[in-house]
């Protein structure tokens, strides 16, 4: 029984890490309707900038601010050069453009900072905590706290501030928002910058787990089942989806895995998400689409 709790808790904590990544996707999709495939590359670029600067001797906070600045610049550039010219184009073209962005970001960060693998020490010890015979990782706890904190900040931002309200208006209906006088370009820049900040935090946490290397871009794949479970447009959905995916993935691997043959972690979350989608085709918390003929 203790083992099951251990696996479950480990899974839940891992799931929070996934939802961190999913948050970036949700932010952008919510506000601009773009499925941002470049989120993984943004994580890499942010983490590499931070690690590269720290390597050069910068202090942690200075590097953090500098990396944040880089992501904001990137958001501004993307809005100006990619999103604005492609306004009103079909979703699939925008998706494709974000793939182009992925290549640009990957190439640039590796060209500027090199392809060396860097360690990231955030000062969080990774020694296990033992609570009633269940092993819990300190690092995962800190990561969950961070993710939780981020969600609270983002939720407050969306609900309480003017910019947040404008973002919700844009997400609801671009045309209506424009007609009320909300500056679409500035909103998009803000959203992409926010996603960039989320990417930076994600990059720091994942980078200290795996080392800052190219493989960080593949973290984005982990977030996909989370957003289809939770819904593309819901922040709460990202968290709930992440928890479900994380827990089910680990429990399935340990208990179902040996029966079927092991290594099922990769596709099990997708299967689960698929089954949920059959019941709720827009995700658990996603916006229900209304189709009119």
């Amino acid at each position: 029984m203790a083992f099951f709790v251990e696996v479950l808790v480990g899974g839940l904590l891992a799931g929070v890490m996934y939802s961190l990544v999913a948050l970036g996707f949700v932010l952008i999709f919510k506000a601009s309707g773009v499925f941002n495939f470049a989120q993984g590359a943004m994580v890499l670029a942010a983490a590499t900038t931070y690690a590269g600067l720290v390597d050069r001797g910068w202090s942690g906070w200075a590097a953090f601010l500098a990396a944040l600045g880089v992501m904001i610049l990137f958001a501004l550039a993307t809005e100006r050069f990619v999103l604005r010219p492609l306004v009103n184009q079909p979703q699939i073209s925008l998706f494709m453009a974000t793939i182009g962005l992925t290549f640009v970001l990957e190439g640039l960060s590796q060209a500027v900072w090199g392809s060396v693998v860097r360690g990231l020490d955030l000062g969080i010890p990774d020694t296990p905590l033992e609570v009633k015979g269940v092993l819990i990782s300190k690092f995962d706890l800190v990561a969950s706290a961070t993710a939780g904190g981020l969600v609270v900040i983002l939720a407050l931002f969306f609900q309480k501030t003017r910019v947040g309200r404008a973002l919700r208006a844009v997400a609801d209906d671009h045309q209506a928002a424009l007609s009320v006088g909300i500056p679409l370009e500035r909103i998009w820049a803000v959203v992409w910058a926010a996603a960039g900040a989320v990417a930076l935090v994600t990059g720091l946490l994942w980078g200290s787990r795996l080392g800052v290397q190219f493989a960080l871009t593949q973290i984005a794949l982990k977030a996909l089942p989370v957003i289809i479970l939770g819904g593309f447009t819901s922040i709460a959905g990202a968290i709930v989806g992440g928890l479900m995916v994380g827990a089910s993935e680990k429990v399935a691997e340990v208990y179902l895995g040996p029966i079927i043959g092991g290594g099922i972690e990769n596709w099990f979350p997708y299967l689960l998400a698929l089954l949920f989608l059959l019941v709720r085709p827009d995700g658990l918390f996603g916006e229900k689409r209304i189709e009119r003929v």
Partner: protein
Amino acid sequence: MIYREAGQFRISYAADQRIFPISQDRVGMMLILAAAFIAVPLFASEYVLSALLIPMLVLALAALGLNILTGYAGQFSLGTAAFMSVGAFAAYNLQLRLPWLPLLVTFALAGLISAGVGLVFGLPSLRIKGFYLAVATLAAQFFVDWLFTKVGWFSNYSSSGVITAQRMVIGGVAFETPVRRYLLVLAIVSLLALLAKNLARSRTGRSWMAVRDMDVAAEVIGIPILTTKLLAFAVSSFYCGVAGALWAFAYLGTVEPQAFDLQRSLQILFMVIIGGLGTVMGAFLGAAFITLFPLVLNWLFHAVVRGDVRAGLLSQLELVCFGALIILFLIAEPHGFARLWQIGKEKLRLWPFPH
């Protein structure tokens, strides 16, 4: 002036319904086919045949399959590589266990098996739409990947899971040399492209386009959504399956699940989008662009920047250039190369007059 219809009268319905009703188009097509079948094998080097043209043609076939699904029927799919994988492994196993089957029948059967798998993974499309469906098809991608790595039977219990595709022999003639392999691939691809074009023009194609445009309305006027969508998945997976079999047999020579990963699915999706959604020619143009352009960039960089520039830096810069060009191209023409070609033809109809 040259490209005019004046003087061409179509005196039968059959003549009117041709794929190329204008005779200049027909002549142009014949020239291209002649060049592809005769001139290229005669003049192209082995490098061009084996490393450029064969992969381009095979991927164009897969892009055709995805175009049928995403371009004509409007079902967004990211599982293309999984269906290619199924086709490749099916062809290998058929050749292994039923060696008396003729090779072309093997490829066709592999395509059918792949179509079956596509049917199963296409079932969610009846309920799920858009990006949700795309991510759901990723389930196919990862599951198939896992299945072929895990279950030794598919790879004939080889210790590493990589299998070597058998030699291709049709009617006693071995297809080993680059020229022969190229001709075989070209023949299969041309035939299937013709089939796709005709499918698109038929009632099936029209019902797909109706479902793509507004499926609720299509259902209202009596188009059976269930069979239409599932047929799209099946036909698309058939094409992808044959493409996968060709990729393994005629190009790589080996079959391993890693060759058909998510990157491959995305690559084929790029081809379809850059080439032009919903056109047969778009598949070929997109395939040509995506396979040849990185090499062009590579060659360009090497020719322009000689000497002591770090090789790694060059490769990274190529990647940046490629990404930037994709974005630029999408901004310039979001409907892809096929649309550019269409505009070109329309302008040619009027040339030298401006309007």
